[in-house]
């Protein structure tokens, strides 16, 4: 099998936070009625998690599910397993009104690590990033500067951002600027 080529070859940046383009993130998009019991149990079987509620995430180790809209979820797993799991889920949902696609190569994923990550994100997205409003366990689909993105926090100091692969370089650029050492506002860490 050919090698997986990341959009930016695993670029990284150190500043207010550490930014790294993640390799090995498998992503499968699911569209369908997320309250349908057939769909819920099929996702549980193949991805090991119960579909999350509105704007929530569900994780079990490397596998997980993100709420994307009332009829869309993004399912996560290791990259090498994405294709097979998508096929498996698709087979289980045969006959249901649902769509399953492996989008691992259509997206880029960045990981932010550091106590300043709320500030780095808040500079780019029209989202209330205060610790009271946005917590680990939530996912937010929004825009970052001029491109669509979704992000969630794995813990207080780690966040992951998903965007289209075609705008990966732009995303890395704006994140790096936002995380520039000289640009600290210290809004959330005061």
């Amino acid at each position, binding site marked *: 099998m050919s090698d997986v080529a990341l959009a930016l070859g695993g670029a990284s940046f150190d500043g207010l936070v550490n930014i790294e383009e993640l390799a090995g993130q498998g992503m499968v998009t699911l569209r369908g009625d997320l309250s349908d019991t057939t769909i819920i149990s099929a996702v549980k079987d193949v991805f090991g998690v119960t579909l999350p509620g*509105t704007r929530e995430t569900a994780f079990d180790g490397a596998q997980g599910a993100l709420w994307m*809209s*009332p009829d869309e979820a993004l399912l996560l797993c290791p990259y090498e397993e994405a294709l097979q799991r998508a096929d498996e889920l698709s087979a289980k949902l045969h006959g249901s009104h649902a769509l399953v696609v492996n989008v691992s190569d259509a997206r880029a994923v960045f990981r932010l690590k550091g106590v300043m990550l709320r500030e780095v994100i808040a500079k780019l997205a*029209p989202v209330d990033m205060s610790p009271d409003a946005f917590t680990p366990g939530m996912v937010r689909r*929004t*825009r970052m500067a001029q491109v669509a993105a979704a992000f969630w926090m794995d813990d207080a100091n780690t966040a992951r951002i998903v965007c289209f692969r075609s705008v990966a370089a732009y995303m890395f650029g704006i994140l790096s600027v936002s995380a520039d050492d000289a640009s600290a506002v210290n809004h959330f860490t005061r």
Partner: protein
Amino acid sequence: MLLINCPYCGVAAEETELHAGGEAHLKRFGPDSSDDDFTGYLFHRENPKGVHFERWRHVNGCGKWFHAARCTNTLEVFGTYSAQTTEPPKDLLDTLRAKRPGFKWRNIA
């Protein structure tokens, strides 16, 4: 700046996360309609100073279309509701009647 609650994902979405979709509750007149009906459907729009019903799309978010009732003068957002309807919900109309007595928008008052 507008903050509009998306009825589908429940976030108070900022204006730049949304896209305006024009007037709400238009009734389509198709090929066999009269010229007057078709002209009205295609061109005639309300342009009120006050209460207005609009379509919006949470384009940088859940991607769903929804309806909003808004004041074009003060930019107050009275409420949002599902796109799968041909008229505003009753509780929203009650709110509007209380807040803006005597408002009129097409055949809604």
